[in-house]
């Protein structure tokens, strides 16, 4: 089975801190995604990447950046965390030629 592993299940950070959320997949998928999930809003795409060192903005990129230095790892960076970034963050990966996305278990981030 494809595994998408997010490094932390729960995180609590202070306003203004720099926050790194890490995601690793083990099946050589080209595409990786970061979503945030908020009640009533579904999942909204923050950034995605379809190759190493490539990144594309999603629907809500403001306040976030990403890094993909290796194919298996996709990091989401909050340069200066704010309380409105308190949310559940989900990472996903997929192949280009196969119809299926695999999601990680999520990181619940609280910014205080």
């Amino acid at each position: 089975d494809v595994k998408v592993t997010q490094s932390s299940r729960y995180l609590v950070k202070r306003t203004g801190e720099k926050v790194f959320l890490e995601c690793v997949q083990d099946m050589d998928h080209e595409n990786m995604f970061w979503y945030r999930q908020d009640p009533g809003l579904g999942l909204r795409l923050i950034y995605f990447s379809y190759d190493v060192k490539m990144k594309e903005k999603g629907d809500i990129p403001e306040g976030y950046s990403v890094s993909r230095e290796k194919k298996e790892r996709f990091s989401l960076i909050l340069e200066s965390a704010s309380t409105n970034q308190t949310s559940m963050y989900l990472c996903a990966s997929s192949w280009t030629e196969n119809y299926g996305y695999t999601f990680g278990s999520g990181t619940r981030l609280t910014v205080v």
Partner: protein
Amino acid sequence: ELKVEQNPLFLSMQEGKNYTIYCNYSTTSDRLYWYRQDPGKSLESLFVLLSNGAVKQEGRLMASLDTKARLSTLHITAAVHDLSATYFCAVEWETSGSRLTFGEGTQLTVNP
């Protein structure tokens, strides 16, 4: 911009009853996904619908896709308590690379 709308957003039903969740989307796409999410958990893939007229069934759930109407339905037959969860539809579309856009989610509660 692609919009995906689900209705209803909240559904409370009795065991044994039938109901349908609707997913409308605003632009052309031939691929639609249905996911289930239990509280505090990640997304579990239910169905991938790849073409107009596609119908897939698994247990008490049946999903269909009408690409001309830009509509997918998730039909629940003889609901049981174990189906209580939040259900998301997601539409795949091509920009620079494939990406999923999600509906808001339908929170289903099945009462004894």
